[in-house]
């Protein structure tokens, strides 16, 4: 070797060795040997399907790239969610890609623990068990528990059960609304959950119904809420929303007035309102005279004064509410939340139905038909019977299809013990949850995003599920498993269920629908259309209802609570917006994104009033023991002003003992404290059932909340328009500048966020995590405030007095025209681009973090550590967005990849960009359309028009940052006020630089 060659080799080796240290090695890159024809690298394919994260059944469009689902969005054509999704829906991908999914069939060892086995063996095992029982003529000793299924799978299950001779099936949903159904039957003779037209209501009174969180169909109702009571017309909010609940929930936080009623006395308030309406002769004219008479008689004992003492709602307030309600054109009263379901739930809902009826709103805002399919769920009492049968050894085989009753049923019901007595339990599940872990045979099933199926949340809404990608693991569709069993379990069964697979079965059922809806069209064309559209929607006529006479027999009992009557607190357990009944707890996004109200991450807590905290001498993070007659749990205290002092509240969803690395060993499950007794009238589940003693344990468990301060200290970050405010609109003063103004020759991207529409639901945050490859950092890192969210929803509690003043502000990069972050970067890693974006060049960033210091909005995140996506979560990463490594700063880009994609598409189509072509992920998913994005250079664009709204202001405008994000003030703290501004006064914005309320 010559000297020169040696030196060259040396140089190359040394450089390579040095560089290797700085760069992360790319994992294996495998090219397609034979490229699939319909996969164009770099071009996304979208598939329409249905979200199955909760029973609401929103339509989805799933974006796939190179055969991987990378983002879910609402299906704009779907009538339930009209293109929007909630935080749970956005996190559906983390169900699909969950690293803790069951990857192959498992069989329980006699010693405990599971051993993997092949699908053939697993199916044979199941078939043998069922065939054996059938041979012995004991098919009636087989039972099924499924969640709410509608359409084909539901039918297949029924057909299958009939074919096998299995009599017993429980359709189990923890949140089942039995009382609402029963109340409808009692009041109007129709056992159904009505269709609530929230969008039409001008005065909405919610008796605890958390319709912005989990109640029936939260995305749909959130949209309806801002189109209804929250809509702004002629500079004023058109309606009023009054929330009646012992706790200031997220829904209550969005109310114009919060009425902290004594728990379980909602019925009395409703009846007192009826009393006032009838006494003042303001019942709807359509009411027959005899009904008015009987009703008047019936509500006679409930005069406002008596009721005021019972409910803690002043009699004046009751009168006010009644008048406001009856004057509305129309109003709507809703009720039936999970948290408020007590021993008198049915009577309460009857009273609420009557309130609507008396005011003439039944048929207008409360409509029967189309009914919600949630009305098909089995009653809690039926489940109790099954548990009794299991406990008595009458059930010899139990099939569990994707349900988790061990976690969601009160321990006192004894489901767990009864389950142990069933000789053969087979679980068809995707996750090793508390119930699956107790099965003898585990058959892993596809997640909904990998499955064929259909779902009809409401009569007439036929959503179609299609697999958006190949199954990740060796899983099967539940329908296929049932059909496979049917083929081999016996000749008689096989002949009744001849379909080769569930897909064929599904198509056949849709042929029937095709015959009904579009008989003149070719089925294949119809099928293709339906696949593309995500389903087919029928208009279902509503049916008029009349008051039954049965209603007058309804006895209104006071709420019965079990537990010590004194020195104890009513326990309010409420469904979590993020975790629902606990099924969301294994999605890291849902854990890491702060709870909308408490802003706590990765935990459960018990909310106590400051007064209670004083009495117990506990502070935030002190662990207390909650003891009910049925159990004890320990939870850290969250001191919360938005709660009655006689109540403590615990969210449902945490406290898993199984269910994967993200869910396990966090907080406690409050369901363990609840009573197993069903409600008398409806046979439904009772959630508001116990009083608990609180004991200080002396231990501390620090809760991590991202709310450093609950008050905004008069800094005018979240502003409101108040009744008194008559400021004329003052344009922001131009401030002299040494530097020339930025030129934006083409587009000038900007955003408007309407705080009157923002409900603080976190959907935008989850969408941003999904779209922009934002890593999850875990509780310990969030405790250091190192969360990476590019958009966060700040929640300021300005005052919790007579009316709450809770203000939500989605905070993201403001893309300032005069950005403080830009001049301080020594290496130009951040700069103002010609389209008004504050761009960030990750490659160029050396990590001085000067920009983060200098950003007054604190929206720049630094990658303190390298991000981690446990396999296979990394498959969700958006290939259009760089995955950042440690040591660089990142922040909101206004979804620059979407801007680019829209431009590319416009160019391909030979046209300029149109308003609405570019929609960032946050704006796309916002259930209330609070976020609007577009080109500020185009004076006619929606964003430009909204930015000129007199309610508009810039956060911290006094710093002369000139943000591209304009916020529209919320109509705040109006309480129970007249609808219109007094004398139609102009709603002004605060003068620039003036720190407003």
């Amino acid at each position, binding site marked *: 070797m010559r000297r020169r060659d040696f030196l060259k080799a040396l140089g190359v080796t040394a450089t390579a060795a040095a560089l290797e240290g700085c760069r992360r090695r790319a994992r294996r890159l495998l090219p397609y040997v034979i490229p699939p024809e319909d996969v164009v690298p770099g071009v996304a394919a979208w598939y329409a399907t249905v979200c199955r994260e909760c029973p609401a059944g929103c339509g989805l469009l799933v974006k796939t790239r190179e055969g991987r689902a990378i983002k879910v969005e609402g299906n704009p054509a779907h009538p339930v969610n009209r293109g929007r999704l909630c935080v749970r829906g956005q996190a559906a991908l983390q169900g699909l890609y969950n690293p803790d999914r069951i990857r192959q069939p498992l069989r329980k060892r006699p010693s405990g623990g599971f051993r993997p086995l092949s699908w053939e063996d697993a199916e044979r095992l199941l078939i043998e068990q069922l065939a054996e029982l059938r041979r012995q003529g004991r098919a009636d000793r087989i039972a099924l528990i499924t969640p709410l299924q509608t359409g084909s799978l539901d039918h297949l299950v029924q057909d299958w059960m009939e074919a096998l001779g299995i009599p017993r099936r429980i359709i189990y949903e923890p949140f089942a609304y039995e009382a609402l159904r029963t109340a409808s039957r009692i009041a109007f003779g129709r056992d159904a959950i009505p269709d609530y037209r929230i969008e039409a209501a001008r005065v909405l009174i919610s008796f605890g119904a958390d319709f912005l969180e989990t109640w029936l169909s939260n995305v749909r109702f959130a949209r309806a809420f801002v189109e209804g009571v929250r809509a702004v017309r002629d500079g004023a909010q058109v309606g009023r929303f009054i929330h009646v609940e012992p706790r200031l929930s997220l829904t209550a936080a969005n109310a114009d007035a919060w009425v902290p009623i004594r728990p379980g006395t909602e019925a009395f308030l409703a009846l007192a309102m009826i009393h006032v309406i009838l006494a003042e002769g303001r019942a709807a004219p359509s009411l027959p005279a005899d009904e008015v008479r009987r009703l008047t008689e019936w509500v006679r004992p409930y005069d406002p004064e008596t009721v005021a003492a019972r409910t803690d709602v002043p009699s004046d307030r009751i009168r006010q509410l009644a008048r406001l309600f009856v004057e509305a054109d129309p109003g709507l009263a809703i009720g039936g939340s999970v948290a408020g379901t007590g021993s008198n739930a049915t009577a309460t809902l009857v009273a609420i139905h009557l309130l609507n009826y008396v005011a003439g709103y039944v048929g207008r805002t409360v409509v029967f038909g189309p009914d919600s399919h949630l009305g098909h769920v089995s009653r809690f009492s039926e489940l109790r019977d099954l548990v009794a049968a299991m406990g008595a050894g009458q059930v010899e085989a139990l099939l569990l299809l994707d349900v988790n009753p061990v976690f969601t049923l009160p321990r006192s019901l004894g489901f767990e013990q009864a389950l142990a007595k069933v000789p053969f339990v087979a679980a068809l599940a995707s996750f090793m949850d508390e119930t699956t872990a107790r099965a003898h045979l585990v058959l892993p099933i596809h997640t909904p995003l990998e499955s064929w199926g259909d779902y009809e949340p409401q009569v007439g809404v036929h959503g179609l599920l299609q697999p958006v990608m190949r199954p990740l693991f060796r899983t099967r569709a539940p329908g296929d498993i049932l059909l496979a069993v049917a083929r081999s379990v016996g000749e008689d069964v096989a002949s009744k269920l001849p379909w080769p697979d569930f897909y064929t079965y599904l198509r056949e059922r849709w042929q029937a629908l095709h015959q009904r809806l579009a008989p003149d069209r070719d089925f294949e064309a119809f099928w293709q259309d339906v696949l593309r559209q995500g389903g087919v929607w029928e208009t279902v006529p509503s049916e008029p209802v009349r008051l039954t006479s049965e209603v007058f027999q309804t006895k209104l009992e006071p709420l019965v609570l079990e537990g010590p009557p004194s020195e104890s607190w009513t326990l309010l357990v409420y469904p979590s917006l993020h975790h629902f009944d606990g099924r969301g707890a294994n999605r890291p996004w849902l854990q890491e994104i702060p709870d909308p109200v408490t802003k706590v991450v990765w935990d459960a807590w018990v909310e106590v009033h400051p007064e209670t905290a004083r009495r117990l001498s506990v502070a935030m993070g002190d662990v207390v023991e909650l003891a009910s007659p049925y159990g004890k749990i320990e939870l850290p205290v969250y001191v919360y002003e938005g709660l009655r002092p006689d109540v403590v509240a615990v969210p449902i969803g945490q406290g898993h003992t199984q269910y994967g690395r993200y869910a396990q060993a966090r907080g406690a499950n409050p369901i363990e404290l609840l009573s197993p007794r069903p409600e008398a009238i409806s046979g439904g589940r009772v959630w508001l059932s116990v009083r608990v003693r609180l004991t200080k344990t002396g231990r501390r468990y620090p809760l991590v909340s991202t709310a*450093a*301060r609950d008050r905004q200290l008069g800094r005018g970050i979240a502003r409101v328009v108040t009744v008194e405010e008559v400021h004329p609109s003052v344009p922001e003063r131009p401030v002299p500048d040494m530097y020339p103004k930025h030129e934006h020759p083409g587009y000038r991207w900007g955003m408007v966020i309407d705080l009157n529409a923002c409900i603080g639901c976190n959907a935008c945050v989850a969408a941003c995590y999904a779209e922009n490859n934002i890593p999850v950092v875990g509780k310990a890192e969030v405790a250091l405030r190192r969360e990476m969210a590019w958009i966060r929803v700040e929640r300021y509690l300005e005052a919790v007095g007579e009316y709450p003043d809770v203000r939500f502000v989605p905070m993201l990069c403001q893309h300032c025209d005069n950005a403080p972050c830009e001049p*301080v970067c020594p290496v130009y890693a951040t700069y103002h681009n010609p389209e008004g974006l504050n761009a960030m060049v990750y490659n*160029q960033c*050396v990590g*001085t973090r*000067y920009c983060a210091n200098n950003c007054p909005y*604190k929206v720049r995140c630094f990658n303190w550590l390298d991000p981690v996506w446990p396999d296979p979560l990394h498959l969700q990463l958006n290939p259009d967005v760089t995955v950042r490594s440690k040591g660089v700063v990142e922040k909101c880009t206004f979804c620059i990849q979407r801007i680019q994609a829209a431009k590319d598409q416009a160019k391909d189509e030979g046209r300029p960009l149109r308003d609405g072509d570019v929609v960032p992920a946050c704006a796309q998913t916002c259930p209330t359309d609070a976020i609007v994005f577009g080109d500020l250079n185009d004076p006619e664009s929606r964003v430009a028009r909204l930015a000129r709204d007199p309610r508009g202001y810039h956060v911290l405008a006094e710093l002369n940052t000139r943000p591209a994000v304009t916020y529209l003030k919320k109509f705040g703290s109006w309480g129970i006020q007249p609808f219109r501004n007094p004398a139609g006064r102009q709603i002004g914005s605060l003068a620039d630089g003036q*720190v407003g309320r």
Partner: protein
Amino acid sequence: MAAYGRIHADVLRTLAPPGRGYYTALALVGAVLAWALYAWSVQLARGLGVAGYRGAVQWAVYITNFVFWIGIAHSGTLISAILYLFRARWRAAISRTSEAMTVFAVLTAGLFPIIHLGRPWYFYWLIPYPNQRGLWVNFRSPLIWDVFAVGTYFMVSAVFLYVGLIPDLAALRERTAGWRRRVYQFLSLGWRGTQEEWRHYRSAYLLLAALATPLVVSVHSVVSWDFAMALVPGWHSTIFAPYFVAGAILSGLAMVLTLTIPLRRLLGLKDYITDRHLENVAKLIVVTSLIVTYAYGCEFFIAGYSGNAFEQAVFRERALGTYAPLFWLMVFCNSVVPLTLLVRQVRTHVWALWVIALLINVGMWLERFIIITGSLSFDYEPWYWADAIYRPRWVEYSIMAGGFAWFFLGFLLFVKHFPVIPMAEVKAVLGRRSDELGS
């Protein structure tokens, strides 16, 4: 005062082969440095997340140390250059120590911004030179000004130190043998001590002193602009440049005392670095401490008087909130303790002086820490305010200790290889009247 001959003997004695104590000190310093290197390697491998940064406090201990060490550097230049220009002849004996301190302090300070970076392996991207990356630096960023300020400062102070050493190196060349002699010979640039050489030497030294003098003001002004140019309440203030310069000199003088008092004892140089020297430094400390105290008061006054809610919140938190214990400790160290030096008995009591100097060092470090992390903790968004005080973790403590080790390593090596008393200059002071100096 000693005779010419004794000066040589005394100074050369300091260069004699060291004893066990010296090696122990070296080993200790080396061990701390090695540990710090380990800590840094952990930080490099895993990311800055291993440090204790929390929330909006994205600048913390490393930047504190940077400012602290730059401050230390300052009094060296003050003593060697400014006092030289002012013909304060008493400075001669401590000027070499101060200059060496300056150079090593700047060397230490320069490490911290690099350690602080998210991707320190790209630190050279901050240096503007034509490159094939096609990238350039942003001259609007105060961090780039820092690069220039610190770079210039290092170069000028190193040259100043070296030029001052030349006649002494020549003297050493004559008195040593072997490889040392060859090294000194090389370094002394063939100095023969002719009249011509002395004439050139004096004007060069004077010029360098004149060049270094504005740097005392400019370097720390530029460093202070890292903060003053930012939008952060508690930083964005016009008082910062003079405030930081005064603080720098205060901390630097304290460091001079911290170093020279043990040094003159260990090396037996009491005849050269006399109590009078120490007393003069103590007087300067009182003056700068008063300036710094005035600046503290001024900040609070402006915050209160301006009616700026953001500014007020920061200072409320500083004096009465989470940072109150640290803040009042700082006031005690920097404003109260130095006042005792007004008493002659205190400032002539060597060990009292040393303890006071140490306290001032602590106080000045705290001052930077409070300004940096305290202001960042309470800026515009209450949502992002610090819910707990930022606490450094072991990595930061280790690297901080490593900074001291690095500084002392340099200093220890220096005192054993170069004369800590400028022989030529001391002789000149001894033989001539002060007004003849430097002409």
